[in-house]
């Protein structure tokens, strides 16, 4: 019997990936951490400040307001997109020639570059020459997203729903397709109503898929930048200045690297925490 010799050569194969990840993720993250605890006045001179920036950000009214706006935005978007996505997935045919057509139609909004989406909605919502803006005004509704905060919010949310509901639809549809026919047949024999079929068969079986959909939508909407900034640029005043827009304003607009870095880290940790909470809540039953 020969003894096995440990072969360490495989580590060489991992080396290129390690280098890539180091340069693309680890080093930049470490740089941000570095900036967040230091102060600079330019000329590459840094002074260590400890947690000063973190305290400043956490006590800053501006940050609180941005955070509140962001939480409100994410909550509205999730509340609309998830039920709407599930409803559309339930309505889509599961067999027959229309399946491919529906799937392609649903996939199309997801394929458009995000800044193009923003630009599209910006133009279409223009109150004087945009199709939507002009029609709304013609109907008597006073609509001007460049001046009214409510209109700006409505436009942002409409854009997000138009852009991203398809993702929820496709995920929910995949979950629904995985349910074997026997369940529906048994429900028919048991005399179950349409609502009972949804509540006791379809929804429980879609649970895992919906968890993924909610997590994805939560993270993406919490981090939204491109579409929002192209449509409203932060809104009339700062009414649609969501967290990421605010962060970029501080970091690049004011060149305050310290506070910006601290805010980035706080932002990152908030997303991490909320995602963990969502995930734990939605998968707790599986552990039972």
């Amino acid at each position: 019997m020969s003894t096995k010799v440990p072969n360490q050569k495989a580590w060489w194969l991992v080396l290129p990936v390690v280098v890539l990840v180091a340069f693309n993720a680890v080093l930049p993250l470490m740089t941000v951490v570095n900036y967040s605890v230091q102060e600079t006045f330019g000329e590459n001179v840094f002074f260590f400040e400890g947690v000063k920036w973190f305290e400043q950000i956490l006590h800053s009214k501006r940050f609180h307001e941005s955070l509140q706006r962001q939480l409100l935005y994410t909550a509205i978007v999730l509340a609309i997109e998830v039920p709407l996505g599930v409803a559309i997935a339930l309505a889509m045919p599961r067999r027959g020639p229309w399946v491919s057509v529906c799937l392609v139609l649903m996939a199309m909004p997801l394929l458009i570059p995000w800044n193009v989406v923003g630009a599209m909605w910006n133009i279409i919502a223009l109150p004087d020459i945009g199709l939507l803006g002009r029609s709304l005004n013609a109907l008597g509704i006073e609509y001007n997203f460049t001046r009214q905060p409510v209109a700006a919010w409505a436009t942002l949310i409409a854009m997000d729903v138009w852009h991203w509901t398809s993702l929820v639809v496709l995920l929910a549809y995949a979950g629904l397709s995985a349910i074997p026919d026997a369940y529906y047949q048994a429900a028919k024999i048991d005399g179950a109503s349409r609502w009972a079929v949804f509540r006791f068969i379809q929804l429980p079986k879609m649970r895992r898929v919906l968890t993924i959909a909610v997590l994805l939508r939560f993270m993406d909407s919490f981090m939204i930048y491109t579409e929002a900034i192209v449509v409203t640029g932060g809104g009339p005043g700062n009414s649609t200045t969501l967290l990421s827009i605010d962060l970029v304003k501080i970091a690049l607009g004011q060149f305050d690297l310290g506070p910006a870095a601290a805010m980035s880290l706080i932002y990152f940790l908030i997303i991490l925490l909320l995602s963990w909470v969502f995930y734990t809540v939605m998968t707790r039953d599986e552990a039972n």
Partner: protein
Amino acid sequence: MALVRLSSLRHSYRAHVQADADWAVKRLDIEWANGTANALLGPSGCGKTTLLNIISGLLRPTEGAVFFDERDVTALAPDERNIAQVFQFPVVYDTMTVYQNLAFPLRNRRLEQGAVDRRVREIAALLDLEPMLAQRAAGLTADGKQKISLGRGLVREDVNVVMFDEPLTVIDPHLKWRLRSKLKELHQRVGTTMIYVTHDQTEALTFADQVIVMNEGTVVQAGTPVELFERPRHTFVGHFIGSPGMNVLPATFDDGVARFGGDVVELATPARPPASAKRLELGVRPEFVRFASDGIPVRVVRVRDSGRYRIVETEAEGVTIRLLLTEGQLLPRGNAKLRFEPKFTQLYADGWIAS
């Protein structure tokens, strides 16, 4: 409980039927008496699941009608027919407890709570599910879930037919036996008409009073398990039932005498093969073949030990003839002679029995 009758039934999954092969179920007329335990036995793709779905109403037949007693139910939906169906893999409502699962069909019919409770507990006792009533259905093993499926079917008191679509497929082997016995016991206690679809002959032959063997959409033979075993009407039934299957040997027929090779073979009943028959065969099960001092000369080729008996393969005229030897019976080596028991030897013309 009801008598189930299929009248001139034919079904095709295609919209436009062109060839005979397009029919999943070819024309058949079957009647199942009230309160009997029946089996539909056949290989995969023979149309038995299609037939089951037609009876339960999940499928509308292309032609023909389904009757429960005197009622034509062909146009009725499944929940209007009062049937119960147990599927191949357990179908339970995962989020509900066992109790709620069993109560579900009754609650959908708006039965009052007292009656629901009484009936659920009755069925749970019948199926040994009582200790688990408060548990979530998702936590049970596969055989427990199948029992819940079955219970949901039996909980309604006016069930006409209970149908099983290969229900033991996902059950572990040592639990299969217990569940099979349970099903038989249930039939004896509840007395509902039951139809059991399977491709496993053991399940069919032990459960049913009457077995219908199907192949490629047609009924090949219908009869009791003993009839199917002792007098198969088609060589397919001979192959399919019994382990090992029936020996099928090429034969000739002249002047009322059947021969294999040069030797005369005595038959159970006088044979009358049609003159146009292209292929004549002799069928005899290994259980009814013996070594004898005088008979058909064969050469012993191989012996397999299969536990209770030994399967001996012999060769004659280029075909294999199998027979069974129990412990204690001597095994001749090299050349030997075989005798077929006349009572269980039949002549087949183009596959069908020729008597």
